[in-house]
């Protein structure tokens, strides 16, 4: 460690004010604080004595995402060998999947780092680790066959428009990872709209995702019947949970998502209120739609609440995106309202609008926008309550 310290201290002199490399000071600072811990102390309040700084918070989120990556890579390989009809081992499936996941990951991080470093240098602030989390989330929401140049554009859009123009990490209104995905969703709909299968297979290999089947009913009237008619993939409830189905890279295995969520709750990073409230909102709305299903020809209305939770990326969005501390609400009452509305909007977008097979992304972005308003009125009503109590 002393060796490392010496190198960094020596090289640091080159980056000081007035030295030739001073424009790149944020780069040196980032290397320094990632390798060693930070030396800087707050000069003004509040003084919180805790090692849980923003760097560590972000790092824990990345740890929670790693299992999703590993399973995502395995799943790509598994579906590929199943489609080709060749026998394979877990290892060979995993390696095949990694050849798709790694380029996506690398391109996302390069794009994110370019944007973040450019803005850090122009605005003369330190490189913030927030972009690591955004860049770790973006690949998990992507189909494995996404063209890399589209991914590059989407990531730049998400980091710049979703975060930097609002002032950087901590002041953004919208979740940058979802902004990136929303941009690609509307910019390149053929690749990412969610109607076509997202498995990597031989040429011309197509099929339907679990989300698109009920949206395009043929002669079967209920969702359960429709799921049962699919022979290409196993859409039984159990397999929807285990995740050996086509989908975005990180969304399919629900167990790993739940474990990641528990880890984040245990570390005090994500809000359990938002997660529970959004599941409640989804169950409430889906249940209501089930009651109404008899009066409509829309097969989406017959999907049970459990199926709604398991298909698509509802759990992934709820655990890793909706409960993110920056863009969600900050009051406890507000968290319940915010989460409930996400669940409600997800089901409405999925069921009522056939143009958008998946609704989680749009639901979270819409509620991101309303989060400050919800907080404002909750704080205001509290002030009014206390005023009237003392009047």
């Amino acid at each position, binding site marked *: 460690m002393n060796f490392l310290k010496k190198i960094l201290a020596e090289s640091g002199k080159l980056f000081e004010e007035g030295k030739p490399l001073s424009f790149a000071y944020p780069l040196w600072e980032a290397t320094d604080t990632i390798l060693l811990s930070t030396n800087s102390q707050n000069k003004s309040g509040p003084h919180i004595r805790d090692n849980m700084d923003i760097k560590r918070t972000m790092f824990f989120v990345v740890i929670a995402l790693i299992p999703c990556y590993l399973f995502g890579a395995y799943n790509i390989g598994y579906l590929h060998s199943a489609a080709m009809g060749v026998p394979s081992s877990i290892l060979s499936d995993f390696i095949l999947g990694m050849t798709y996941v790694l380029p996506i990951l690398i391109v996302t991080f390069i794009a994110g780092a370019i944007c973040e470093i450019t803005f850090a240098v122009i605005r003369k602030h330190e490189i913030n680790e927030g972009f690591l989390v955004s860049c770790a989330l973006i690949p998990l929401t992507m189909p494995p066959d996404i063209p890399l140049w*589209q991914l590059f554009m989407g990531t730049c859009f998400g980091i710049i428009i979703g975060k930097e123009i609002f002032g950087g990490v901590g002041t953004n209104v919208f979740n940058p990872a979802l902004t990136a995905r929303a941009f690609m969703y509307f910019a390149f709909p053929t690749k990412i709209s969610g109607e076509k299968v997202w498995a990597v297979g031989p040429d011309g290999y197509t099929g339907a995702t679990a989300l698109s089947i009920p949206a395009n009913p043929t002669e079967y009237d209920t969702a359960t019947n429709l799921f049962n008619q699919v022979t290409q993939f196993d859409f039984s409830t159990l397999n929807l949970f285990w995740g050996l189905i086509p989908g975005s890279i990180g969304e399919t295995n629900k167990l790993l998502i739940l474990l990641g969520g528990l880890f984040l709750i245990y570390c005090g990073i994500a809000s359990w209120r938002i997660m529970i409230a959004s599941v409640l909102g989804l169950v409430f709305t889906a249940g209501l739609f089930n009651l109404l299903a008899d009066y409509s020809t829309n097969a989406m209305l017959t999907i049970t609440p459990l199926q709604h939770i398991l298909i698509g990326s509802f759990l992934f969005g709820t655990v890793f995106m909706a409960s993110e501390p920056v863009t969600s609400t900050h009051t406890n009452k507000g968290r319940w309202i915010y989460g409930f509305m996400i669940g409600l909007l997800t089901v409405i977008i999925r069921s009522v609008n056939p143009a958008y097979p998946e609704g989680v992304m749009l639901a979270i972005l819409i509620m991101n926008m309303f989060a400050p308003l919800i907080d404002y009125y909750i704080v205001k009503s509290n002030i009014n309550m206390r005023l009237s109590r003392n009047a």
Partner: protein
Amino acid sequence: MELFNSESKKIINDPINVNNPISLQVLGICSALAVTIRLDQAIIMTLAVIFVLCSSNVILSLIRDYIPSRVRIVIMLSVIASLVSVVDELLQAYLYDMSKQLSVFVGLIITNCIIMGRAEAFALKNGPSKAFLDGLGNGLGYGMIIIIVSFFRELFGAGTITLPDGGAGYVLFSIPEAWYAAGYENIGLLVLSPGAFFILGLVIWTQREIFGIEEGE
């Protein structure tokens, strides 16, 4: 009065640069979103707006001493509406295809805030020659922004660059088929109105950065 002294230059230059009606006063956004899907539409729209803006400024400036201030809005509107009707008829007579494409947005020049705004803020207080220059400057400022926005929207949204030619438009450039075969895709988002917002936002950002204008409270 000298036509090109420093004051006249300022009247023309300010609305193009530091006081642009779209990017700094944020007026006339509606048409900036609606007619910027194709470059040729934006060019014809710019010409129409410059004509209406200059003529209405000059006419209102000439009769400014006879307008009672209580009914000035009505008089301004009737002058502008007559001029817009003239433009609409001219387009239908000589550029029928373009008139079809622009459809209702030619008529909606009446409601463009820039025209009312310049009449109210400038033409009613200044002589006709100054008012003409002001109309020209603001028209060019408006045109510059919508032409930039439509250039990027058409190039990346539809993959072409179209110039007006009296008919359905002359395609100056289109992205070669080989690019599409290699995996290039048009950005569908830019054809939708939100795409115009993003481009417009980036233009506003760039322009404020160039002229060093900060948001004042």
